């Protein structure tokens, strides 16, 4: 029988590749900084020593490091949510956007940008705060409607409500944009996904949310295995089906709400990463979920690196890069699956 949990060497291998991607993304950019200088800046910053190279330290500590942290945490979150949703709904085309919460969060952010909404205590977090509020409201609305229509929260009901809600939000966003013609470019750039200008505050919020919600999802690995085999199976072997669904849906909603509020709608990470990882480690969620976290980090870090450097000094939205790569990879996986 296949090994159920991550082996130590697998964990070490994924960690090493992730660390290498992190180092690469911190060192490379519009201005390249050597690994030695990078490590020196980080060491001085941790030890509280004065920085020898002011330019390098400003670029690394104020711009690149918070951004790279946000990219890595967003990648891990999106991939983890995608893997969880694909297992829960037994649908390989499901991802975090299936639920419609990411659309809700996007609407919140668009409203904040269009009408210049700011939080009095945290002026920098206006978009983020509004997006999180909208994400929560969307989640509550979607789950309440799903409960009202179908007490058992069947998979089809959730998917249907998610799709309908996303369409509704898309129309609402068009209306908002109509009233904020001067901010169309900013809104368009945001909706394509970008982690430009991320802060340590953003990274901390993402980190804490991933720790809490990711922990909840990881603890449901066995239940997700049962759902991935079939909801009937889950019912018959003793899984508390409704409780598990609610737990996973709430954890995914919160995590996605925070991700979208910080980085916009970054497509394909939650869809494509679990597909690729499943080919590597199999469908067992005890291995799939942690492997998806690592792979999501690596994928998004490299996508962000490409977005920053391919047309430098012009920067592409990260969502454009993930969509290009994701679409090609998806076709390749589909082709391979069809051809056996």
């Amino acid at each position, binding site marked *: *029988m*296949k090994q*159920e949990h991550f082996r130590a060497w697998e964990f070490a291998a994924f960690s090493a590749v992730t660390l290498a991607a992190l180092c690469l993304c911190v060192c490379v950019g519009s201005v390249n900084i050597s690994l030695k200088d990078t490590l020196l800046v980080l060491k001085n910053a941790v030890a509280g020593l004065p920085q020898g190279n002011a330019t390098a330290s400003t670029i690394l500590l104020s711009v690149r490091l918070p951004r790279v942290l946000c990219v890595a945490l967003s990648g891990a979150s999106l991939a983890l949510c995608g893997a969880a949703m694909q*297992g829960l709904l*037994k*649908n*390989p085309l499901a991802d975090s956007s299936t639920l419609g919460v990411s659309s809700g969060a996007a609407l919140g952010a668009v409203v904040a940008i269009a009408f210049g909404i700011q939080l009095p205590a945290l002026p920098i977090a206006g978009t983020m705060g509004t997006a999180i509020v909208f994400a929560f409201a969307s989640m509550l609305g979607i789950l309440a409607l799903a409960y009202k229509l179908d007490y058992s929260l069947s998979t089809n009901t959730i998917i249907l409500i998610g799709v309908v809600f996303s369409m509704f939000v898309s129309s609402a966003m068009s209306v908002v944009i109509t009233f904020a013609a001067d901010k169309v470019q900013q809104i368009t750039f945001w909706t394509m996904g970008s982690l430009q200008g991320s802060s340590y505050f953003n990274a901390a919020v993402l980190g804490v949310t991933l720790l809490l919600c990711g922990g909840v999802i990881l*603890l449901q*690995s*066995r239940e997700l*295995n*049962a759902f*991935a*085999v*079939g909801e*009937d*199976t889950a*019912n*018959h*072997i*003793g*899984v*508390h*089906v409704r409780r598990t669904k609610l737990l996973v849906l709430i954890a995914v909603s919160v995590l996605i709400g925070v991700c979208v509020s910080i980085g916009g709608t970054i497509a394909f990470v939650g869809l494509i990463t679990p597909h690729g990882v*499943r080919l590597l480690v*199999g*469908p*067992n969620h005890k291995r799939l979920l942690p492997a998806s976290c690592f792979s999501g980090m690596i994928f998004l870090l490299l996508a962000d690196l490409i977005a920053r450097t391919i047309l430098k000094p012009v920067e592409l939205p990260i969502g454009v890069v993930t969509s290009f790569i994701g679409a090609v990879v998806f076709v390749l996986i589909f082709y391979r699956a069809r051809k056996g």
Partner: protein
Amino acid sequence: MLEVKDLSVRYGQHTILDRVGFSVREGQWLMIVGPNGAGKSTALSAISQTAPYTGKILLGGRDSAKWKPAARAKYVGVLTQNHHVGYSFSVGEVVKLGRYAHSAGMFSAKNSDDAQAVERALEITGLTAQQGQNVLTLSGGELQRVFLAQVFAQNPKLLLLDEPTNHLDLVYQKQIFSLVSQWLKQPGRAVVSVVHDLSLARAYGSHALLLHQGRCVSQGEAKSVLRAENLNAVYQMDVPAWMQGLFAQWQGE
């Protein structure tokens, strides 16, 4: 082991089951038979708490609705007729899921009983050599054996079978019924199954419940329930004559 009192299931204005009652004791194999739409599968769904119902369903003397899902799964195992596995799990992984209700949690130490139960279930169903095989590559009959192994690994006291050999060829029909028959020989066990094949019901069932349009027509020992007058009245045809006609084609060969 199982007592059902005044079981009714309604979807809107449509009554699927109307005040049906029966009981199953240790060592019994109850065959639920009847034409399409009689409410056979709905009765099993109600017992496994996957259909809304009114009335009482007692498992081991306790109200089934009040059991926690994991505790109920230790008492009742269910084998349905169709399985659509979502991803490429191995045979061993699917069978191991049967131990879900017995494992204390994700952080508990490895339970040797789990491994033994899975090994035994694989062995009984003849799947030991295939435990690493991808379930998506199996035929319908092989897949049904995998899910039977899962139920055996679950080690319930009461086994519910919902038309377990539908769409399966004769070899697999014989295998599945023989395996369940062997399983039932252990003390403290009972089986309730829904079948369409009246010959199988008669051959393997100790007791039978004949349903028609959601109501109980007859119940008791299989031989007394599956009699010509009962069956003819429910199926609106001469059932024994039809079956004897079928068998007559094989005589003299």
